């Protein structure tokens, strides 16, 4: 009586759900907390821990790109750098955090670096990083999601998450730094300017 005939269909023959379902943030937070603890048992330093969280995020990002392009962009994906960045800043952020990111900016010092900054990412909501773990930011997982989206779209990049203190704010913001592969920029330069 609980079986749904849809389960008898091959997974790709089933319609893609609308994606409006919700679970409690608690369920996610407990899972994520355990994930961080598991990762800690398999690394020897903070850099490796961030890399692991990032890797797990990449697996999420690659799939989210497909889902979001299918739902929101009629299965088209962006091919220009600025469009992809806007997609991350707006569509992806709205999907993940319910709002677009606060800032999207290009680095003053490097042409190939872009930054998205925001406060209160839910992955960090309940996490207090001990002093001896220094600059660890578990939003490395979010950086991984962004990397997965960018890689999947053909914009290879190194993506990292950093806490950045802000004057007059009690809490630091998290900046997701995207450093694009030289191939990506070279391709972008060959294309006509927009």
């Amino acid at each position, binding site marked *: 009586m609980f079986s749904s005939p849809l389960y008898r269909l091959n997974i790709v023959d089933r319609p893609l759900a609308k994606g409006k379902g919700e679970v409690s943030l608690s369920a996610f937070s407990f899972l994520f907390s355990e*994930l*961080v*603890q598991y990762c800690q048992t398999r690394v020897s330093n903070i850099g490796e821990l961030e890399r692991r969280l990032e890797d797990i995020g990449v697996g999420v990002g690659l799939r989210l790109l497909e889902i979001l392009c299918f739902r929101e962009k009629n299965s088209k994906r962006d091919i220009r750098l600025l469009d992809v960045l806007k997609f991350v800043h707006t569509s992806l952020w709205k999907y993940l955090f319910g709002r677009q990111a606060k800032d999207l900016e290009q680095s003053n010092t490097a042409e190939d670096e872009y930054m998205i900054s925001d406060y209160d990412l839910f992955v960090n909501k*309940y*996490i207090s990083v*001990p002093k001896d773990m220094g600059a660890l930011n578990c939003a490395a997982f979010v950086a991984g999601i962004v990397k997965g989206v960018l890689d999947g779209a053909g914009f290879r990049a190194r993506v990292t998450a950093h806490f950045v203190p802000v004057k007059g704010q009690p809490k630091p913001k998290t900046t997701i730094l995207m450093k694009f592969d030289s191939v990506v920029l070279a391709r972008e330069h060959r294309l006509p300017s927009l």
Partner: protein
Amino acid sequence: MPAIYALYVINKSGGLIYNKEFVVMASNNLNDTLRLASIWHSLHAIAAQLSPAPGCTGIELLQADTFDLHCFQTLTGTKMLMVVEPNTPDVDILLRDTIYDLYCDYVLKNPFYEVEMPIRCELFDSNLFQTINNVHRRWGLLH
């Protein structure tokens, strides 16, 4: 005048795992506090067995001339103790609803917290202080 003096958390085995005072207290010596925690833990258990009332779970409130001590024990065996000015109202509700929630959120969901060990979580501290300040403000102790 109602006021909250201190919060202590005692783990299942009677160890003090959190200790925060919100006012300067006459005796805020850590050894005294550790002793208080383990004595309370034992008395609480003995009281539950001595009590003629069926289903007694331990001491919920101790009243002295100069303070009240409220104790909330979760079903998982963790105790949260709050020392307050005598006759401060609704402390049981504060512990059961608000402080317990903060503990679930900022202690138990923190991957860097080990269960049963001392609580060192910045976000728990800051949210606790905010909660206590809000309560004190409501009572007109802070402006």
